[in-house]
């Protein structure tokens, strides 16, 4: 019985199988290690495309002045910054609100400092996406960019995101996904050979970027994630394949 329970509590950490409790700790270590060079590495890895993907996510979110936005796993805060402009954080009339959250203190610290430097009143909150410390039906939009794949219980996290959304509010999930089949070999070579090498050169941390490549492969593909979102109660779930499916942006509404 104990053995079965142990088996049930196993999860993926890249290609390795680890105990659920261990995953959060290991993910924490990875992001603690890459926090200071996170955006630089993103720029190097995606040739700057991650900025365009994030901007696109903000554009299709449909948020307007006065809306409340929750940025989950927001890390370095680049999305929060874009949303803050769109909802009018700090504007004298009909001011919106953006809350930046991350489970990792190192990443959140980088984001909080950047918000302060930009003169934006965006609260930064360290919290677990599976236990969000917000009331029901509070936000107009929830976004999680490149964070869902690191969560241990994705369904629980998605259900939490649904809980804190207002009726008619939308969830946006920007995440690495399954690349278009003819490009998969080139993409594999890039992810498993070049990516750790770049990690070693730029962030002095090849292992963390090896995990990044592995975790992308273990993450649900476009259709599976769409189904997961539908299963927790989102409706009209749709996705955009970006860069031939390297990244997908899922959008779903709360009924």
């Amino acid at each position, binding site marked *: 019985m104990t053995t079965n329970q142990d088996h049930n509590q196993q999860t993926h950490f890249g290609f390795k199988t680890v105990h659920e409790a261990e995953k959060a700790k290991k993910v924490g270590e990875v992001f603690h290690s890459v926090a200071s060079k996170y955006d630089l590495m993103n720029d190097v890895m995606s040739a700057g495309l991650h900025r*365009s*993907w994030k*901007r*696109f996510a903000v*554009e*299709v*979110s*449909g*948020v*307007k002045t006065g809306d409340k936005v929750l940025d989950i796993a927001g890390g370095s805060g680049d999305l929060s910054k874009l949303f803050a402009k769109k909802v009018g954080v700090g504007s004298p009339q009909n001011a919106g609100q953006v809350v930046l959250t991350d489970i990792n203190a190192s990443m959140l610290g980088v984001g909080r400092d950047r918000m302060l430097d930009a003169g934006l009143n965006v609260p930064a909150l360290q919290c677990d996406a599976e236990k969000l410390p917000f009331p029901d039906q509070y936000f*107009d939009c929830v976004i999680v960019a490149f964070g869902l794949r690191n969560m241990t219980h994705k369904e629980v996290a998605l259900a939490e995101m649904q809980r804190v959304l207002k009726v*008619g509010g*939308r969830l946006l999930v920007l995440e690495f996904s399954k690349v278009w089949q003819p490009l998969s070999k080139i993409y594999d070579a890039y992810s498993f050979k070049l990516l750790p090498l770049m990690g070693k050169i730029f962030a002095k941390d090849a292992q963390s970027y090896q995990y990044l490549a592995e975790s992308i492969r273990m993450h649900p593909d*476009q259709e599976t994630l*769409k189904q997961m979102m539908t299963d927790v109660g989102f409706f*009209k779930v*749709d*996705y*955009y*394949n*970006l*860069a031939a499916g390297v990244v997908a*942006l899922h*959008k779903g*509404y709360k009924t």
Partner: protein
Amino acid sequence: MLKQLSTRLLQHLIAQNSWANALLQPYAGQSVRIHIGLISPTLIILEDGSLALAGDTNTPDATVTIPPTLLLRLIAKDETAKSQINITGDTHLATELAKVFAHMRWDYEDDLSKLVGDIPAYQIADFGRKAVGSIKETSTNLAEMLSEYWQEEMPVIAKKRHVEHFNSEVDTLRADVARLEKKLLKFEKKLTQPLSSPTDTHNP
């Protein structure tokens, strides 16, 4: 990349035509697929009343089909062409979107002014407007000249007056044929009716 650029362009146009937000906002979350020749983009109305390209698995609420020939007539502002656009699904939604596109204007002078400054932008735009006007005028003159040549000098195009005369003659002929048909039917009926016997008339 195309999705990002198209969405940015659509949102820029909507931002320049802010009156459209209020019109589109009640339809937030709904989408319309537009078939124009080989391309068929699906546009989704966002919660702020702006537009974006819909996702890859979107099921449109309405479909608008514009054949390429009809598109040319629409560009030429042929009012009768509008009634020939094929709309399926939520016609109200498609009509509202069409209304927005019909009245939307691209303020290119404003965009240009951000790059080169107000005065050069005005001058470039003015030059552009004059060039377009001049091309339009030259094209009209050329078309009129050719039509006159083909009607008068080398008659390969029928004149309007002749076409109308021909049509009127066809109408008269059609009416005559119809009358003749009726007369023939009347005769046929008379021939098929049994002849009344003369003895019957003498019965008391």
